[in-house]
């Protein structure tokens, strides 16, 4: 590196530089636009335009199936917001999301703390770490068939629960109205916690060890040290991860579609499967678009919190 050369920073440039910038040939000034045009065009054509299309669809009647749909304003929104099935799906999505995110946080923190424990040697640590990351390798389509096998009435989980006496008889977890939502939530918890754990593990290494030493000096026990040193240190990561996880979990489609398909009797219907069925099972594309726009709006609210959070972090 040329350490002897002190380069002026961007904000303390001599006044002549912006001048020269102005006189640059047009070709050079257009260069950045030319170079980013593939990205801009792709995102415009296949992100921005589709969003506009879906919003327009939600304001019309019988789109796609009828060659000349009429503008109906907010009628679709009123119709969908008075549908009990929509609210049932929204409620299920909320339970599924809150349950998953909360459990991801608890398990993520717990596993990260255990893996970070100083009393463990390197080799067992690496082995446990590899095992704990395992669920993250598998995509939702695989996770779904795997858990259908495990949770089958004659499957291994029912065998274990009946043989230790927790259950009297096997339960078809995914096909029983009372247990289906719990079952898909557990599956999602299993498949999603490693991402939390990995980020928290990185975060734990960032908590300064002299803080622990100081707390120890003050006579704080392990639990006290966790509450007043570890947790505050992890709070920013936990908050960001929780928001991201919320965003992803509310959008989960594959896991539900490939385990219960929203059943039994709509007990695991999520906004994503509800929307999909409206479009591709009953061909009500206007209603499906309306539902899709509502999902978009909900996601944007979470995303705004997330971006704000990141800004605040960046400023610190």
């Amino acid at each position, binding site marked *: 590196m*040329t350490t002897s*050369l002190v*380069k002026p920073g961007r904000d303390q440039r001599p006044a002549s530089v912006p001048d020269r910038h102005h006189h640059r040939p047009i070709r050079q000034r257009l*260069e*950045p636009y030319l*170079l*980013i045009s*593939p*990205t801009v065009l792709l*995102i415009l054509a296949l992100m921005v335009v*589709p969003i506009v*299309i*879906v919003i327009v*669809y939600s304001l019309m009647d019988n789109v796609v199936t009828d060659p000349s749909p009429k503008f109906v304003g907010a009628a679709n929104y009123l119709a969908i917001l008075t549908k009990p099935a929509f609210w049932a799906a929204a409620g299920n999505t909320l339970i599924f999301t809150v349950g998953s995110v909360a459990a991801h946080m608890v398990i993520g923190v717990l*596993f990260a703390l*255990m893996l970070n*424990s100083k*009393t*463990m040697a390197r080799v067992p640590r690496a082995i*446990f770490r590899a*095992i*704990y*990351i395992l*669920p993250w*390798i*598998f995509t*939702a*389509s*695989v996770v*779904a*068939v*795997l858990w*259908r*096998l*495990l949770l*089958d009435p*004659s499957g291994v989980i029912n*065998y274990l629960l009946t*043989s230790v006496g927790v259950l009297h008889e096997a339960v078809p977890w995914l096909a029983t109205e009372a247990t289906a939502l719990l079952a898909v939530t557990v599956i999602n918890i*299993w498949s999603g916690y*490693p*991402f939390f754990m*990995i980020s928290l593990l990185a975060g734990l290494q960032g908590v300064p060890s002299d803080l622990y030493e100081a707390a120890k000096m003050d006579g704080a026990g392990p639990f006290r040290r966790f509450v007043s040193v570890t947790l505050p240190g992890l709070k920013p*990561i936990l908050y*960001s*991860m929780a928001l991201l996880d919320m*965003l992803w979990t*509310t959008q989960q*489609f594959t896991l539900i*579609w*490939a385990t219960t398909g929203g059943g039994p009797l709509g007990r695991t219907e999520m*906004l994503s499967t509800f*929307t999909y069925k409206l479009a*591709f099972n009953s061909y009500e594309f206007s209603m499906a678009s309306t539902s*899709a726009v509502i*999902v*978009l709006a909900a*996601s944007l609210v979470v*995303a705004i919190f997330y*971006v704000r959070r990141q800004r605040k972090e960046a400023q610190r």
Partner: protein
Amino acid sequence: MSSFSSSAVRRRVTARIGLYIGLTLGAVFAGFPVLWMLSSSFKANSNIFAYPPKLFDSSFSLAPYMAVLSNPVEIGYFVNSYIIALSVTAVTLLVALITGYVFSRYEFPLKRIINVVIIGVQAVPPITLLIPFFGIMVGLKLYNTYQGLIITYVVFTLPYAVIMMTAYFDSLPKELDEAAKVDGASSQSILWRILVPVSVPGMVSVGLYTFMISWNEYLFALTLTQTDDRRTVPVGIQLLMGQNNYLWNEVMAMSILGSIPVLVLFLIFQRYFIGGLAAGAVKS
């Protein structure tokens, strides 16, 4: 050492035993389902629900894998997945390199707003895009084609890839390219000859992320393809599952085979995976 009272030692030992009990319970929760999938993929289908269940039984064989690998339709799913995921990775990487370079090294009037849009579109739920995408792909005659899925996944992976690549270039000292600029190098040669060779870690992270998303995607693969010769592995697993009386052992074998690419990439590039993904999730 001698100052340790026996009660402190005992407490320490108890804590250690507690830790290992906790670790083992966690490992069972995390690992048992995977172990069961593996064991089921080697069983005869008639033994899948044998009572009492055994991890490995006398029917242990590679037959389920042979069945999957000798079925041309199922091999086709794998070929399709590889074609699509590798193409998406190449295209996204190329476009993200150039865009990241511009975002990192140029100042121009619309930069901020374009940046905000790129960050913002990441929050758009896939289900929201599905209905218009279906129409657009049918309209462009890209329905049930490789190109349709490739372009779809490029658009889905590009925002995060650009953000990661920009952050990577930002971490490289500006002196690197300014020296070359003084020597009269063009912006293209600065990117390809100076920045790209020192950006391999960033490119690996972006490539892994892109490959994984494309390899694993299900919803759009399901909706934008129609015939077996264009289906990908995640959809193929569900199709096999829906077929004649549940061939559990073959479904599990196919799931294992379908997870191997990600597993192998993960084992080789673990550092990049965790670094890139965690940093992106927390900082992007």
